[in-house]
Every structure is written in structure tokens, then in C-alpha cells.
């Protein structure tokens, strides 16, 4: 006790780490162009890089959303004139062609997965939060970190350029299954568009790998004194395990991507079987196997599904505890379940391939592991419910988004069991049921979690809070419209309505489903339009929002001890950690929160002893 108190006293008097730490930002007035470039463009500061990722991904989020609207337009009203966008293909009378439609859904998924969800979680929030929440002054490898952002730009360029090459952008689905994707004769978008797609994917992979190495090293080596692994906030645990997933799964995708690239450009034929005839042209090489790509692709892309949700789960856990003013229920089970999801995540990839022609006996194995991965997800859900039980809930915008994450994740988790059951999957595989499922996980889950995180950490990023009223309007409308759009997809899937069809109404089985699809499209339009409120609130609050102090939410974790926004070097003194991140409403303590850096408190020690 006495040693801890001495250390704490030392901190009270302020032991400045360095001079730079005291200066929030290098002032632009004395800066030449090179200072400007190194501060805001080629910055090695994790916060600037995080914000660069955030702005880039939000921009691509808009692009992906508009692509989705175009997809929805065609599904609701096939072959009718497309508003606004229709002018682009006026030569076809303003309607979209079926090849354009296949390109739209391919690029919608590609943009959303590779340019929005993965980089916004790891790139934006991972970068911004990891050093701040563990009490480090920056990442372990600042230059690698800078490169991880700038390697996104060749990817941005490749994906953007692919829209303008002959045949248009990739149109063989985001899964890029051979031989549709490997044979240039297979589809208009299987030409240059597909090659650029593979190039873009590779650069995204390089960026992710650079980030992942950095996050692992930083979290292992650069934690503040006293910050043991089991005092880390859930956000950091999730980011750490996500980084491990990336590091182990990504090389497989990169290798597979190169194999596909060689198939396309050098005629290697890794994925092309003997005697393959596409569009009346016989393939030059054979001896390959289309299923090989599916195995390699999903070996990465299934863990990637968890890469796309675990960080959101971590951030939501932290936000729920803060606004329930209560410790996290079951901290260790939460950590173990994240690790469990990650571990099992490596042996479930085959559930994407139940209908693929893979050995059905192998399907049984994957079915069992897939069923079992529902378990840690269930444990997490129960612990979130346990966290708000008996709390003192504050309905901030951030909290509403976090609560909706829990509510929506329940739906996404439960619908997964239908697909995991192999006989049921026979019927609902590749229907709108699966579309409903992954949108509940990735949009209603992750995207809502990201909004919770944006509203929560905005004060730390920009020193001002976002408008709460308009935040709640944004939440309410998004919540209503997202359920209108995606919940109905479940019953559409129950009819067997297939995904990726430009027009399904000529089938006897599906011809009566147009009105429902039209309803969903209206909801989707509403959902995208609602984001205007968010965009205005975001940019207005950056400059004119109420100034936030260091700790506007009375939260416990280390980032809230730094100035808002933190300067270069983050903390104005070296933080020392005395406890876990969730000490809210400790009995006998006057305040309802005890920060991780608050000096040891006798009442807290007594409460901790009583709790055990």
C-alpha cells in the first residue's frame, strides 16, 4: 500500500515524460509544407493515422451504401429506370443491365468488407485506442503504422479504377469463386476488373498485416506500469485477439490471391479443371480444382468474419459498463469467450461450403464445430445482459447504439443456427436468409457498434462532444429502418428467394415477393438518407460542438486521463495503473467511478476483498 501511495504522490506532482508531450500539437504557424505533411499527411502519430483511417472508411461507407441502394433498386423494381445513377447508362435507356447488377453487389460487399468494416475497426479504432488505453505514448512501430494506412491507397486506387476499365469492376461476387473469376471469358467483369480486384485485395492485406504486427507488439510490450493483461479493457483484448487472427489467417488469403492472379495472367490453372469450357472457349490449362479456392478463401474469410465483429464486441462491452455505471459482468469469461471464438473460428470455414460438393462427411465435422462456436457468443450475450442488470442506465446516444448492438447481435447469432444445421442449409443456403444473417451481424451488429464507439470516443478525438439530440434521432431512424430492411429478409429467405439474382420474379415460386422487396428498398433508402443527419452532426460537432473535458462520460480507462484531444505523446505524465477498468459504483467511494490511475483507495480495497 505504502509503495503504491508514494508512486501516486509522484504522479500528483507531475513527472513529465518529455517536453513534446506537454505541447498538444506542433503549431501549424511555424510549419513549412514539410511540417504540414509530416503532421497531417504522412504522420506517424497513431491518433492521426487512426483518424485518417476513420475519415477514409466513412467515405467508403457512403460509397458502399450507395452501391447497396442501387442493388436494392434493381431487386425491388427490376429493369426500371434508375434515378440519378441511370444517367450514367443512358445508352441503355436508364435501366441497369444484369452485368451491371452483378458488378454492383460484388463491389458493395467488397467495399463494405475490405474498405469499411475491417479498416474502421482495426485501422481507425485499433490505432486510435490501443496506445491510449494501455498507457503508451504511441505504437511500437510508428513507421509501419504510417505505411499500414498508405498501403490502403493503392487498394483504393485499384478498386476505384476497376469501375472504369473495359467490362467494368469485378462481378463474380466478393467471394470471387473460380472459374467465373479466373476465366476472362466467363463474364464482362472477369477481365481487368477482376485483376484489379485481386491487386486491391492484396494491398488491403498488406495494410492489415502491418497493422496486426504492430498491435500485437504494442499490446504485449508497451503497457503502462501496473497494466497487467487482466487489467486490459475488453476493447484491447478484442483488438489483440483480432490482430492474432489477422496474422495467422491473412497469409493464406494472400497466397490464394496470388494463385488466382497467376491463373488469370499466366495460365497456371490452380483452380481450373481439365476440359473446362467457358463461353465456348476451352481453357488452356487444367488439372486444378475450383473447390481449392473456396477452402483457401474461407480459411481466411471465416476468421475475417470474427475480425469484423470482435473489436465491436470489445468496444460495446466498455460502453455498456460505462453507461450502466457497473462493473463488467464476468470479465474473465468475456476474455475467454473472445479467445474461444477466435480459436474455433479457424475450424469452421467449411460451413460456407456445405452445398459446394465438398465431401458431405466433412460437412458433418464443420457442422459440429459451427454449432459449438455459438456457445462463446451466447456466453458473451448473457454477460452483457448481466452487466446492465442492476445498473443505473444512462440513455446517451452511445449507450443506445451499444444496447442495440446486443439486441441485434441476438438476432444475428440465432439465425446462424439455421444455417449451421446442414439439412436446413440445403434449403436456405444462398437465399436471403443468409443475407439477413450477415447483415444482422455486420450492419446491425458491427456498424451499430462502430457508431456507439464514434459517439463515445468523439470527445477524445476532437475535444468536443457530438450533439445528443440529433444523435438520438440518428439512432432511432437507423434502428427502425435497418430492421425494416433486414428483418424481412428472413421470411424472404424462408421462401427460398435466392440472392444475387437481377430479377427473380419470373420464377413461379418467387413472383409474389415484389411488394415485400419494394418495402425493404424504401426502408433501405430511409436508412441511407438518415446518415445525412449523422454526417452533419459529425462535422458540425468537430468545430462547434460543446467542448469536452478530459473525461466527459466519467469513464475509468486510461485514455480519459489524457487531454482531449491528446497531444503528441498522449499523456502529460506516465500513467500508472492500480486496478481493472470496470470499477464503477464501488461501495464506500464518493464518486461512482474509480479510474484505473486513481491511487489505491481503502474502501475500494475493502469492497474488492468482500467481492471475492
Amino acid at each position, binding site marked *: 500500500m505504502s509503495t503504491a501511495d508514494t508512486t501516486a504522490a509522484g504522479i500528483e506532482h507531475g513527472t513529465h515524460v518529455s517536453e513534446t508531450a506537454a505541447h498538444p500539437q506542433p503549431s501549424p504557424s511555424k510549419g513549412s509544407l514539410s511540417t504540414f505533411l509530416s503532421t497531417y499527411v504522412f504522420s506517424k502519430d497513431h491518433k492521426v493515422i487512426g483518424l485518417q483511417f476513420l475519415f477514409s472508411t466513412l467515405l467508403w461507407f457512403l460509397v458502399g451504401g450507395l452501391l447497396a441502394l442501387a442493388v436494392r433498386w434493381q431487386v425491388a423494381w427490376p429493369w426500371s429506370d434508375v434515378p440519378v445513377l441511370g444517367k450514367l447508362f443512358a445508352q441503355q435507356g436508364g435501366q441497369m443491365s444484369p452485368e451491371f447488377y452483378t458488378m454492383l453487389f460484388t463491389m458493395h460487399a467488397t467495399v463494405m468488407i475490405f474498405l469499411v468494416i475491417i479498416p474502421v475497426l482495426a485501422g481507425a479504432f485499433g490505432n486510435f485506442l490501443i496506445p491510449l488505453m494501455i498507457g503508451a505514448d504511441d505504437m511500437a512501430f510508428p513507421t509501419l503504422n504510417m505505411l499500414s494506412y498508405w498501403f490502403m491507397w493503392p487498394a483504393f486506387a485499384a478498386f476505384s479504377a476497376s469501375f472504369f476499365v473495359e467490362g467494368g469492376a469485378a462481378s463474380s461476387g466478393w467471394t470471387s469463386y473460380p472459374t467465373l473469376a479466373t476465366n476472362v471469358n466467363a463474364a464482362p467483369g472477369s477481365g481487368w476488373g477482376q485483376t484489379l480486384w485481386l491487386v486491391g485485395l492484396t494491398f488491403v492485406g498488406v495494410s492489415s498485416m502491418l497493422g496486426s504486427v504492430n498491435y500485437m507488439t504494442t499490446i504485449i510490450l508497451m503497457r503502462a506500469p501496473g497494466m497487467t493483461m487482466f487489467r486490459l479493457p475488453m476493447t484491447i483484448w478484442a483488438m489483440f485477439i483480432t490482430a492474432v487472427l489477422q496474422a495467422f489467417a491473412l497469409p493464406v488469403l494472400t497466397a490464394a490471391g496470388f494463385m488466382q492472379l497467376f491463373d488469370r495472367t499466366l495460365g497456371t490453372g490452380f483452380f481450373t479443371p481439365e476440359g473446362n469450357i467457358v463461353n465456348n472457349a476451352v481453357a488452356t490449362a487444367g488439372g486444378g480444382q475450383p*473447390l481449392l479456392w473456396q477452402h483457401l478463401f474461407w480459411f481466411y474469410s471465416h476468421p475475417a468474419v470474427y475480425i469484423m465483429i470482435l473489436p465491436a464486441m470489445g468496444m460495446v462491452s466498455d460502453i455498456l459498463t460505462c453507461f450502466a455505471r457497473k462493473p463488467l459482468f464476468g470479465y474473465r469469461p468475456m476474455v475467454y469467450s473472445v479467445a474461444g471464438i477466435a480459436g474455433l473460428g479457424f475450424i469452421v470455414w467449411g460451413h460456407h461450403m456445405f*452445398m459446394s460438393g465438398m465431401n458431405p462427411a466433412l*460437412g458433418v465435422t464443420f457442422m459440429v464445430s459451427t454449432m459449438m462456436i455459438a456457445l462463446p457468443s451466447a456466453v458473451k450475450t448473457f454477460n452483457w445482459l448481466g452487466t446492465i442488470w442492476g445498473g443505473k442506465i444512462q440513455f446517451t446516444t452511445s449507450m443506445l447504439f451499444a444496447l442495440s448492438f446486443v439486441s441485434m447481435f441476438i438476432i444475428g447469432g440465432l439465425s446462424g443456427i439455421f444455417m449451421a444445421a446442414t439439412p436446413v442449409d440445403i434449403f436456405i443456403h444462398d437465399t436471403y436468409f443468409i443475407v439477413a444473417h450477415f447483415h444482422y451481424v455486420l450492419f446491425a451488429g458491427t456498424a451499430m457498434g462502430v457508431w456507439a464507439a464514434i459517439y463515445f470516443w468523439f470527445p477524445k478525438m476532437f475535444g468536443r462532444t457530438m450533439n445528443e439530440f440529433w444523435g438520438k434521432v440518428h439512432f432511432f431512424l437507423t434502428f427502425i429502418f435497418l430492421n425494416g430492411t433486414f428483418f424481412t429478409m428472413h421470411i424472404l429467405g424462408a421462401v*427460398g428467394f435466392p440472392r444475387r439474382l437481377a430479377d427473380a420474379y419470373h420464377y413461379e*415460386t418467387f413472383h409474389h415477393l415484389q411488394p415485400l422487396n419494394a418495402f425493404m428498398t424504401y426502408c433501405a433508402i430511409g436508412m441511407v438518407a438518415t446518415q445525412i443527419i449523422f454526417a452533419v452532426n459529425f462535422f458540425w460537432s468537430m468545430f462547434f460542438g460543446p467542448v469536452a473535458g478530459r473525461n466527459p462520460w466519467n469513464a475509468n480507462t486510461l485514455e480519459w486521463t489524457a487531454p482531449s484531444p491528446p497531444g503528441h505523446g498522449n499523456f502529460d505524465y506516465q500513467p500508472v495503473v492500480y486496478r481493472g477498468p470496470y470499477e464503477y459504483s464501488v461501495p464506500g467511494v464518493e464518486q461512482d467511478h474509480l479510474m484505473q490511475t486513481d491511487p489505491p483507495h481503502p474502501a475500494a480495497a475493502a469492497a474488492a476483498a468482500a467481492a471475492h
Partner: protein
Amino acid sequence: MKRLSALFWSLLFLAVPVLGVATFAVAPAYDIWLPKDVSEHGPAVDGLFYFILWLTGAVFIATEGVLFWFIWKYDESKSNGGVKYVHGSHTLEVVWTIIPAAVLLFISIYQMNTWADVKMRRPDMAPTVEVIGRQFEWRLRYPGKDGMLGTPDDLHLVNDLHLPIDEDVLIQLKSMDVLHSFFLPNVRIKQDAVPGMKIPVWFKAREEGVFDIVCAELCGWGHYKMKGRVTFETRESFDRWLEQKYAEQEATQPADSESAAVAKLSPASLLARR
């Protein structure tokens, strides 16, 4: 004001299970539900769907209900500072790990038999018909009089599949170019057609009727229009139809020629031309 806003938000979260259940309850009335099933194994598949639906439905209502209740009960304006300072409960963790684990394991084992029936216990018989996916049509090949596929007397057709009812049929599924998926919504059958593979598909239809064949795996720009038709009929009328189609094919080409009009583009002939 604070009480009101707590009421509003908790009701919004209550709307999730209420409207969610309502959607599923109302959908069958509008025919937005499982399509008619005419297969022998279909009831087992649908039964499993309903079993999981009831089970997940119960969990859905329970968890969303608890979420609503906690949001309603523990809002800031109501609780008088009485926050429960707890870090978890070992007993609860064990309970809510073991119960779902047991349920999930049960579902896993319970479904295996149906899966094996549909995908693993292949009937011991010669293929009734070969179905070959090709951008953007279903090519069909019935064995001729000799009962063997790949002989000169094969019957070649496109998109118009006929099959007998009340007996096992075995389809040999192939693809010529890219992935396709042979989806019969009304028979609860789906199987990808993979270039380079011959995949067996079998089932027994119970009822006569004409139904859709849908391509369920993206196969290019014309994926949406890769539509076929399956006609289930009695053995006698199936044989009659086969006889008639065979006669039509014989009439339109010299008997000695190996090539049906369709077979000109078959992989073997194209490779031979090369």
C-alpha cells in the same frame, strides 16, 4: 422527462421481439413462407427448420425480453443509487455455458440422420439423368434404350426435366463452365455443380406437378435467367414422355450420327475438334 425517455427507449427495444415474432406469425398468411414440398425427405428438413425456429424463437423472446426489462427497470431516473457492485457469478457462468452447450450438441446430433439421408446414403442405381450446368441453361442427358449414359443413343434436352414420382431418382450433376447450383425449392434440394466434378443428387418425389429449377450459385451476368422446369409424373407417363422425346430426336437427325444438336458443344466434342 427522464422517466419518459426511459419508457420510450425501453419500449423501442420491446418492439424488437414483438414485431419480430409478429413478422414470422403473419408471413405464412401472405404465402411468404416455405414453398410447397413434394419430396420424401422434405418433411424432415422442414421439421428441423421448425424445431430450430421454435427453439431460437424461445431464446429470442427470452433474451430480448430480459434486455427490455433491464433497460426499463434499471434506468438512471428510477434506481436510487442502488447499483449492484458485482463482477460476475461463477455459478451463472457455468449454468449458461453448460445449458446452451447441451442444446447445441443435441441439435448437432439430432440433424445428422437427415443430412446423411439427403447427401450421404446414395441409392445403389444407375443415374436417371445427367444434369449439366452451362451459362445459362440446364442441359439434360437421359440414357437411351441401353440404360447407359455416354452412349450414342442418349437423349439430349435443355431446361425441361421430367422425373418419375414414388421412386428414387439419381441425378448426376456436372458443370461445363463455371459454378452453378441446382436448386429445387419444392424438393428441398440444393447442390452446387462444379466444373471437373460429377456430383450425385438423389431424392424421391411424392406428388405430380411442375416446379422451378433455380440456379442458386452466381454464374455470370445471366445467372438470374438460368431457369429450368421440373415435371414430376407417374412412371407410365414419364416413360411415355421419354419415348416421345426420343422419337422426336431420332426424327430430326440421321440415326447413324452420334451428335445430337446439343452434343456438338459437349466438352468431349470440343476437345476432339481441338
